[in-house]
């Protein structure tokens, strides 16, 4: 187990190094530069050159990469070209919105997809089971933006129960207000991601129902449902964990879109603005943190899988 964990950890570190180089290089392909944005139209080439010089943009690529990655290793993500503020501080501030949003979305997705997925599997072949399955398929195909707009129209504009956009200016000082601001966006991502998850839970459950051990338990006198719940569901849970690991990436992508739609000051919205402004040190830091997060989730899921599933432990 320890050997496996170490190998997996090495892979994680390698993944981060490769990701950092890719992030750095792909951003350099983008046309446009921040000095020009600062100088703006009606500026002379001399002015742009003076600003570029003062921002340190005229150094070589390897020099810039080494400086950046060296800083990252010391725990310093660099400073924004535009504001001169610390990238790490900025990310920490925006993470207060994005991570709670992601967790809330995930909880919502799990809360309705697991019971409904199992139920629709048990109800296979009946009208209500088919209806559930078709609904899930339809909802999973709904664009996140449209789902969000519909929720806003109903719950914010018509009913006035929840805010239509924005986040309290003082952050989590009033947790109730902050949570209220996150409900509609989290519901939007949660419903769409949850619908996909529900289809997965359904097929995993159906598969478990066909397994010998479930049939054996049923033959011993348990009802099919009880047999499934006692013996089948732990296995379903195991595969759901794997899929959840993958869905974290989907939720982050969803957050980029949703933060725009709901004007939430999170990492996703900051990322879009910073790419537009060519504030590359900031974009690098943001992408590295997000990539690192997804890679670490994958690492944790793999380890958890090993620990929970006795078959995999023996195989090692």
């Amino acid at each position: 187990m320890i050997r496996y964990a170490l190998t997996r950890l090495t892979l994680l570190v390698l993944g981060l190094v490769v990701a950092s180089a890719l992030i750095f290089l792909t951003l350099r392909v983008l046309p446009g530069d921040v000095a020009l944005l600062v100088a703006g139209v009606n500026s002379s080439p001399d002015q742009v050159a003076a600003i570029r010089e003062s921002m340190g943009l005229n150094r070589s690529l390897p020099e810039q990469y080494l400086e950046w990655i060296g800083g990252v290793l010391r725990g310093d993500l660099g400073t924004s070209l535009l504001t001169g503020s610390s990238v790490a501080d900025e990310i920490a501030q925006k993470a207060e919105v994005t991570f709670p949003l992601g967790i809330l979305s995930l909880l919502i997705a799990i809360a309705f997809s697991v019971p409904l997925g199992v139920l629709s599997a048990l109800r296979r072949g009946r009208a209500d089971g088919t209806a559930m399955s078709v609904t899930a398929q339809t909802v999973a195909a709904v664009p996140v933006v449209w789902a969000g707009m519909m929720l806003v129209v109903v719950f914010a504009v018509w009913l006035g129960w929840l805010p239509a956009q924005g986040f309290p200016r003082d952050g989590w000082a009033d947790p109730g207000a902050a949570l209220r601001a996150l409900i509609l966006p989290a519901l939007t991502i949660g419903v769409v991601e949850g619908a996909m998850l529900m289809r997965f839970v359904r097929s995993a459950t159906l598969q478990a129902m066909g397994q010998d051990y479930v049939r054996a338990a049923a033959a011993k006198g348990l009802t099919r449902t009880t047999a499934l719940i006692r013996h089948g569901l732990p296995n379903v849970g195991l595969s759901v964990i794997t899929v959840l690991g993958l869905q974290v990436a989907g939720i982050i992508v969803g957050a980029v879109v949703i933060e725009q739609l709901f004007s939430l000051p999170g990492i996703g919205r900051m990322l879009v603005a910073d790419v537009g402004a060519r504030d590359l040190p900031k974009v690098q830091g943001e992408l590295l943190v997000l990539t690192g997060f997804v890679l670490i989730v994958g690492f944790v899921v793999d380890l958890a899988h090993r620990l929970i599933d006795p078959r995999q432990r023996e195989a090692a």
Partner: protein
Amino acid sequence: MLRRTALAATALVAATALALTACSGESAPAPTATGAPDPDASVAIRLVLEPGNLDIRRTAGAALDQILVDNIYQGLVSRTPEQDIVPALASDFSVSPDGLTYTFTLREGVTFHDGSELTPADVVWSLETRRDSDDWRDAARLANVDSIDADGQTITLTLSEPDSTLLWNLTGRAGIILKRDDDVDYNTAENGTGPFVLDSWRQGDSITFVRNEEYWGDAAQVAEVVFDYIPDNQAALNAALAGEVDVVTGFDANLQEQIEATGDFALVLGESTDKGVLAFNQSEGSPLADQRVRQAIRQAIDHQGFVEALASGQTLYGPIPSLDPGYEDLSEVAPYDPDAARTLLAEAGAEDLELTLTIPNFYATTIPTILVSDLNEVGITLTVESVDFSTWLTDVYTNRDYDLSFVLHTEARDFENWANPDYYFTYDNAEVQDLYAQAVASTSESQASTLLERAARIVSEDAAADWLFNGASVVAVGFDVAGMPSVNVNERLNLAELTKSDG
């Protein structure tokens, strides 16, 4: 319910009145609040473009001027919404008849936001540093200023040659007075003399100003102003419908009915100097180097179509909008006439022309859509390339790598770009350059304006570009808010008079 209906009816009457005044080209006053102004009020204003940083010295962009000039930073002189030049940090000023000496009397008792007093030395330092710093914005606007001296509270600017644009330039960035050798971090903080003080900036979200209790003039009438940056129009409408903002600027006038249906808002259409410019790359070798081709494109475009699609603004046929000196109705220079356009294209041997339009991606898709269909009508195939602003700056602005380009130029009095052959417009006409130089060197305002008018006519007759529309400032104002500026708000938003009533 009754109250709501009554409000809706009032809104309808107000809207009709506003629509009528907008048509006549006059600026409409903001609706008047009926309750008593609340001195503790906080007003939330939706804005579209958030600045990247707050450094008014170096960073370009109307997003900074819009909120910082007048409210936070001030110059010796300022301008009214009607574009008149009025005293600000100077209590009065005079210009010598030869146009070479400008004399200002600096107000006493003015303090910066950090509590230190404004001294004549601060003024001299600010203007000199502005003029001499290459990486400061608008440095060139003070190029004609030979020396800046202070004697007591009297500040004297001596010019090397007359400059009729100087006073106007001093009302903008070039004239901002900062504290000498200040160590404030201008990226995220400020130290001005204006009626508001920066309270907080949540990047990617909002900027908050609070009243400057030590202000030298009449104190602001609201305790707090929050600028909510909401780029998406639909999200802004939702925010208004849910009562989360009091004022929505940069609004889509097509959504007028929806926002007025709340019974809480009225739409105000004010004049602006926003010019939707369709630039033609007329450098040698381009099909657009031929005046007939450029003229054909202008005549193929139905300008009224833009005004209708935007549900606001007015047509424009030359480089100077009606708020600026030198304006003249030039509609006869390029009337909508697809047949004439086809004939011109045939004469120029430019049938089956294929062109690319490079447009920054934050503009509404209506603009390229109308252009594609209008030009297609006369046999020109238009490919639209939507790019982010940074790419636009590199490709179009710096490298001149484009055929047609669209940008909304919001600056007032920016005719200089047509007299600059190095500008991305690629327009080079010695006569225009000469007329502009004469206008700048002129010591009489009316003479300067006449010279500009002549130059503008030539620019239009040369079809140096096409001007698709003169935009309007579209602002939805809550009925409890008064004193909200309605003219040219994309460029400047003086909030000294803003009030919010408690009823």
